[in-house]
């Protein structure tokens, strides 16, 4: 009986290419022609989430849902505990809902969100961390479960803005639709993100 140990180097070469998907279903992501996405040298992007309530878990979940849309690691994020070193800060606008499992039923619009970009005078670079605020609607009464489901949807939507999807989708099936009714990015959201992250940006992130 003989045994041999081989140590060396391996070269991997790929060929016989499969058909490349078209990725024709995407919507606009620019802001009046200006394009923003996180450059490679800023990955992983640092996110800070409000420590109150379940915001940190919701943001972590939302980031994961966006990261998984890209095939080649074009966008990655990490949570940080210090807002002073964050690239993106996500907070509650005012009231903090107690934890509840998200309602699996039809979506109700029990919350909303806003994401703010501050530009320099030339409009070519951000000057501050991107800020997202999530507000619980008080005009009507909703169950905690409905609020929790709404917050999850809206956080995913607002995180889409923070990674560069600056427009709203025209289709209600997309998580980037203005009145977000789905909990995760759709195929069109995915293709839009993929096209965005291979388009040359014109807006630089705020310096660290």
């Amino acid at each position, binding site marked *: 009986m003989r045994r*041999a140990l081989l*140590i060396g*180097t*391996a070269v991997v070469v*790929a060929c016989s290419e499969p058909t*490349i998907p078209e990725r024709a279903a995407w919507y606009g992501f620019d802001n009046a022609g200006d394009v923003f996405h996180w450059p490679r040298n800023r990955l992983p992007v640092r996110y800070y989430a409000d420590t109150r309530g379940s915001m940190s878990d919701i943001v972590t979940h939302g980031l994961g849902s966006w990261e998984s849309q890209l095939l080649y690691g074009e966008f990655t994020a990490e949570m940080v505990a210090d807002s002073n070193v964050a690239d993106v800060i996500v907070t509650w606008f005012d009231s903090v809902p107690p934890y509840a499992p998200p309602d699996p039923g039809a979506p109700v619009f029990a919350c909303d969100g806003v994401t703010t970009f501050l530009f320099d005078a030339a409009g070519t670079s951000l000057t501050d961390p991107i800020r997202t605020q999530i507000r619980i609607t008080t005009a009507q009464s909703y169950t905690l479960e409905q609020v929790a489901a709404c917050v999850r949807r809206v956080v995913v939507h607002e995180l889409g803005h923070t990674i560069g999807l600056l427009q709203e989708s025209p289709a209600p099936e997309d998580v980037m639709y203005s009145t977000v009714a789905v909990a995760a990015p759709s195929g069109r959201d995915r293709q839009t993100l993929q096209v965005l992250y*291979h388009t040359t940006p014109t807006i630089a992130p705020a310096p660290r």
Partner: protein
Amino acid sequence: MHDSIVVPVDAKPAIAPALALSIGEGTNGPWTPEAALDVSWAALQRHESGEAAKFNSVTVIAFTVGARREVGPGLAARVGIGAIKYLPADETGMFRGGSGLWAVGTAGLYWSPAMLGGPAHDFGVSLRYDVHRFSTPALHADGFTSAQLVHRLSLAIGARILGKGRTAP
């Protein structure tokens, strides 16, 4: 993996270290049956617009069974078939949802020249080739409906560490 998203995008492993362990049982005939376990560790890189960026790393394990025979002085050839598995460091991106188990075919030459002690000591140089198909659930979900054919070539130094024989695999 070749892709095109606005611009051409290629994702491929970098040149990487590999380790192979094989075991064979001598017979009276010209062919020696053997089994081999190959492991390699590679950084996965995205090549786009003339730049390369690492985005993951992967351990690739291949187990094959085959046969070997001497084809010349100090020279042995081997063929085999088996299975190959990709184990990514992070199950994200093209590896979200994991990866499957793929059939692999392999062929190789092992040269044990006299200046390295010859076949009696089984120091030598190995040139190995294998081919397999590759895809992942994430690639399939993204529209890559057919698998990619992947060719691998390895150059290695080798030595027999147990047993006796005329040549190592």
